[in-house]
């Protein structure tokens, strides 16, 4: 068997290579699948955002595209009533804990949540789930950027950048369940931690949680 295989996504025939993850094959071929936590090159994806569901022929349940390796002859549908329902619920759950004051957000019009809402016809509003009332202290200790946890979607992109790209290890997930946050050792402000302020984490944040102070809206 050759390295190259053929798969079908939404009736489109695609040539790709064995070992690739379905999500990235689709995205590379301009087929949109919602995603937040997926990181190209990560061997064991977290699959924690629960947004990249697709239907694969022969599977009786929708599966997450980020964890699925392509197989010869795979037939994939990115939309189905079941997929849409799962994505809608996942998205609404993310919003239930998200600061929805988009107009005040530095990532407004440059936000992955807004993209997902637009592409999938979802509302950036809360109606089904009660908002989770939590209070976060803004960490604006670094010189050029700040971290507003009320906008964090816990995708883990910043942690990957901090660990793998920057090789620092200043931030990580702590606590559990609805208390889960991205923070430093002992919850120190970033400037007091081992953070080198390389800003790689700011560049990968898909929402407005980590942002440059220069982009801040008054």
């Amino acid at each position, binding site marked *: 068997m050759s390295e190259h295989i053929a798969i079908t996504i939404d009736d489109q025939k695609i040539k790709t290579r064995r070992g690739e993850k379905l999500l990235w094959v689709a995205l590379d071929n301009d087929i949109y699948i919602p995603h937040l936590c997926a990181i190209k090159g990560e061997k064991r994806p977290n699959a924690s955002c629960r947004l990249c569901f697709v239907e694969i022929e022969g599977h009786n349940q929708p599966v997450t595209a980020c964890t699925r390796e392509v197989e010869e002859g795979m037939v994939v549908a990115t939309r189905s009533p079941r997929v849409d329902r799962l994505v809608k619920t996942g998205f609404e759950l993310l919003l239930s804990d998200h600061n929805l004051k988009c107009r005040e957000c530095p990532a407004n019009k440059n936000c992955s949540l807004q993209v997902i809402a637009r592409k999938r016809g979802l509302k950036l509003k809360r109606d089904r789930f009660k908002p989770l009332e939590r209070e976060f202290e803004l960490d604006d200790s670094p010189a050029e950027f700040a971290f507003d946890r009320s906008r964090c979607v816990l995708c883990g992109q910043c942690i990957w950048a901090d660990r793998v790209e920057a090789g620092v*290890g200043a931030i*990580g997930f702590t*606590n559990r369940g609805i208390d889960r946050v991205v*923070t430093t*050792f*002992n919850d120190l402000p970033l400037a007091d931690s081992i953070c080198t302020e390389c800003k790689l984490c700011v560049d990968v944040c898909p929402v407005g949680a980590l942002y440059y102070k220069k982009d801040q809206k008054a």
Partner: protein
Amino acid sequence: MLQLLKGEKEEILACVKEVLGENSKTHENLVPILQQVQKKLGYLPALAMDKIAEGLQVPAVDIYGLATFYNQFRLNPPGKHEVKVCMGTACYMAGGDITLESFERRMEIKEGETSVDRYYSLDRVACVGCCTLAPVAVIDDEVEGKVTPTRVDGIMLALEEDREDNTGGNSGPGEGADHE
């Protein structure tokens, strides 16, 4: 963050060194290492987590993440008087959260914390096994039933009286005497 007591730093460093010496420094051993350190020290001080991270060559925030993930780990030292409020289903329904809040207000600490003088520590537990007495609190292994906010005031009064009694008889109560 509580201040370390005199001599505590040395104790923590020695303890971590001992535990790290007894275990192979692999990621799989992280939970057992934390358990052993907590068994010896009664809690996981930040200094210990930092030293364990150094020993295992993982980011300190990972140790912190793990210690805050599992309920079995406590980051604050047990107080002289340990108060545990039951949050099992029956106690929760009977207002256990109000009981916990009352203790938090009276002790001026949050759940999982220890007062600065290390006199009180406050925790939640999941079912003590006497649901008919809900809401239940356990004060130093004594089970108290029907702990309404008024009862919390009574319990706190008794604990405060105990503190005053000790202060009268002891020359140096406070922090040094509590240690050990």
